[in-house]
């Protein structure tokens, strides 16, 4: 046993304004894997992701990366490892796609530093990977939902980290752009070997690309493990209080799941 896990989350609990949001969350994740945190609205998915990435700091328990508690690192050091695609707040930004990607180089700079040639190369690569080169000089607030999502992924890639966090990346996107965004994320996970944690309430998207599933309900971990075991256990109706039916998914090993009604 090598003993050192990549991500290790131990007895993580969080209260906001006196209300318990997360209770005793424990799990670990191997390098290069993609984890989907699933659960109904208000289960604490986004809060959990923010605790892991230290955007929330007043939780109890520990989050370690390769054996080092993240609480011992500065935000800048953490930002060299973890990049984010956030759920909201980016639709009115007065920056172009390239400018926004350039801002992600911040954690690698010290003091008064202008963008270097190497920075620009990394930014260009990120734009290419996310397929937004043609949008590079457009303002973020002029993009459509799907375009903006890819631009945000490009910005996250430009940060040059080995870990990517995404909070509901397919929200408000139509089907084509959901698939497009998801395929981009899977490609980043598989081709660039980035460890990915994605928060979503869309179970089909989660099952499509994720190696591991962590199911939350009312702030507690209901289940965690590989995705095939997740399907065998029929966890879904318990998580969402809704019954689901499985449909054959031609060409895919994972069936398509559709909600069919309340569990009474």
């Amino acid at each position, binding site marked *: 046993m090598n003993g050192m896990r990549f991500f290790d989350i131990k007895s993580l609990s969080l209260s906001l304004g006196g209300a318990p949001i997360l209770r005793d969350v424990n799990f670990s994740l191997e390098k290069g894997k993609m984890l989907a945190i699933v659960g109904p609205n208000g289960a604490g998915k986004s809060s959990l992701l*923010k605790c892991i990435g230290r955007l929330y700091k007043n939780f109890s328990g520990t989050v370690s990366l390769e054996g080092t508690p993240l609480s011992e690192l500065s*935000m800048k*050091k953490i*930002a*060299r490892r973890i990049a984010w695609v*956030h759920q909201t*707040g980016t639709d009115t930004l007065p920056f172009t796609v390239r400018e926004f990607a350039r*801002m992600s180089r911040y954690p690698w700079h010290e003091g*008064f530093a202008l963008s270097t040639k190497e920075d620009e190369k990394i930014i260009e690569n990120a734009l290419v990977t996310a397929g937004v080169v043609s949008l590079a000089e457009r303002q973020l607030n002029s993009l459509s939902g799907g375009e903006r999502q890819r631009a945000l992924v490009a910005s996250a890639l430009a940060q040059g980290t080995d870990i990517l*966090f995404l909070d509901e990346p397919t929200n408000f996107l139509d089907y084509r752009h959901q698939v497009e965004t998801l395929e981009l994320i899977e490609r980043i996970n598989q081709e660039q070997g980035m460890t990915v944690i994605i928060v979503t309430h869309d179970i089909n998207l989660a099952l499509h690309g994720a190696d591991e599933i962590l199911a939350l309900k009312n702030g507690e971990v209901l289940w965690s493990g590989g995705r095939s075991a997740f399907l065998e256990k029929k966890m879904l109706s318990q998580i969402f209080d809704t019954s689901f039916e499985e449909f054959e998914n031609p060409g895919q090993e994972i069936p398509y799941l559709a909600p069919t009604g309340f569990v009474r």
Partner: protein
Amino acid sequence: MKWGRLALLCAFSMAILFAAPFIGVPRVPFSELFVLPQADDISVLWDLRVPRVLLGWVTGATLAICGMVFQALFRNSLASPDLLGVSTGASLGAVIYIRLGLSFTLFGVLSGLSLAAFLGALLATFAIYMAGSLPRGGMSEATLLLTGVAMSFFFSSMNMIIQYSGGYIDTFRMMRWSMGGIRAVKFAPVYAPLAALAVIFVTAIFTAPELDLFVAGEDIAESRGVSVSKLRRRLFVLVSIVVGVNVAVCGPIGFVGLMAPHICRRLVGADHRNLTIASLLFGGAFLVVCDTGARTLWAPGEVPAGILTSCLGSLFFLWLLFRGRERG
């Protein structure tokens, strides 16, 4: 293109800085400096005009940069130092000083009135800072902003109580002070504001990447590696002190801090490195123009520059706003 605009702005600002001392009553013709200079003219120029124009430029530049930093910190385009209690705190200090009938000068250069105003500004900053950090988990942008606005109203009310209770002469002096104006005889009053400007300019240039990220939002800034609450606290205190130094010398001068960054954003974009330089140049030039107007339009009398900045500034701002809207 942005560098071109910055260069133009620099030329414009410098032209105003050098031309303004020659405008006014009595007139000091430029040519006379080299041919047959008269002692009176030289004295008017070097002891009155040049210090005053310089102080005006420094003040405008300081307020513009401070406004820019505050607007980024609070992600609020209406945030400005005069809105957040620092100016009203300074006024309160000045008003108390006048009401108590104090009159002293420290080390022969630092007037008691300025000192009182500066202490008022510091006290206000401290109060807002303490009140804003009371909630657990530190200051959010909204709590700090609202605390500042509420405190500002509180200080204003104290201010008015003291003014109301004062005699005619005191009240007149208090009112005059709170209108703000550029007053300088010789260079002594320029030093402290100039030093404060240097501090805030260098700070703004060095924290420009962080300010860019602040504008993008708290979560984005943190996830890109900025320690948001720590940096916000530091910048809040620093800006408040810098504004305090300035208000202590010039009194509250409205609208420059609010408006100049907006206009500069339209000229050079949202990048804070360019914006800092543009704010310095534009803010300085704008206040010099206003102050030159203030001392010449009603010559030989004059009006406080603060009135002109608010008047011209708000009209200009409205024009920009509606012009922008028409173009969509």
